[in-house]
């Protein structure tokens, strides 16, 4: 597995040579600094800790500053671990988007946009209850019955109801890398990516 931390920039579309329009997301990926190398001997598993984005030194704790100093780098905003990577990098080295190639299928992990408190129609795709007429009113988007009365006389656990929606960790699989721009650290992937513009995403292969 290979991975890098990136920032979602926004969406646009480009044309393939045969005239097909492809919806694409621009991601600013890396450069990430290797801030810790975990091995089976020292930590019980293999992983690479990558850091991305700058942080003002006044906002960093002493623990953070010293941890980053081991990799001889300034304080970073986002730190993520990638387990069992095939990236061969030592402490303090930078990982850039050249670990990927054009045409690769990648996975992009992000946090979806928060939707707030939503009803069952939007949150779970219920079709709503009732019609506008036939004696019914004011309940077009209601969930309907949530269980039996005398038996089981309770509501089953996990019953889909209204509630907070969004801000979930979501992985988009099989996104194709349309183009790499190493001079700007931009990756152009086909399709959409979870989260709002400017949110942090992980790109994995």
């Amino acid at each position, binding site marked *: 597995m290979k991975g890098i931390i990136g920032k979602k920039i926004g969406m*646009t579309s*480009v044309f393939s040579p045969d*005239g097909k*329009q492809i919806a694409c997301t*621009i991601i600013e990926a890396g450069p990430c600094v290797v801030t810790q190398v975990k091995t089976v001997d020292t930590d019980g598993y293999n992983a690479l800790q990558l850091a991305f984005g700058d942080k003002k030194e006044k906002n960093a704790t002493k623990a953070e500053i010293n941890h980053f100093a081991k990799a001889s780098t300034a304080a970073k905003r986002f730190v993520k671990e990638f387990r069992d990577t095939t990236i061969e990098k030592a402490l303090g080295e930078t990982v850039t988007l050249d670990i990927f190639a054009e045409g690769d299928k990648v996975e992009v992990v992000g946090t979806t946009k928060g939707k707030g408190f939503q009803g069952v129609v939007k949150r779970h795709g219920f079709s709503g209850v009732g019609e506008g007429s036939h004696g019914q009113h004011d309940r077009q988007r209601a969930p309907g019955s949530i269980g039996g009365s005398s038996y089981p006389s309770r509501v089953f656990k996990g019953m889909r109801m209204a509630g907070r929606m969004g801000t979930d960790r979501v992985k988009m699989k099989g996104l194709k890398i349309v183009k790499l*721009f190493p001079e700007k650290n*931009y990756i*152009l992937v086909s399709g959409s990516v979870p989260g709002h*513009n400017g949110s942090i995403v992980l790109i994995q292969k």
Partner: protein
Amino acid sequence: MQTAVQFIHEQLTPKKEFPQFKAGDNITVNYKIIEGGKERIQSFRGDVLKVQGVGATATFTVRKISDGVGVERVFPFFSPNVEGIVLNKVGKVRRAKLFYLRERSGKSARIKEKRVK
């Protein structure tokens, strides 16, 4: 975000020259179609209903009456399949989007031509 999108299209979208046109103008769009493995050019002549979007993803909609049936097509400006655009007539209209033409037919669906000095 805008600068990033601009940068991407500077690299990936080839520059193209078009005559300046707007809604109400009569244009001919020559576009490539692939028919049985062969490529040929077909033309679509009609009135521009709207020009939408900015930059490399902008599109325009052309409407024509074909055998008494209204036909509309949306073309992206920078599609490699759009071979060329010819401006036939400059129309005199007061709107940027001419959706009212859809409800009209015959004489009332005509667009007056603008006299060019």
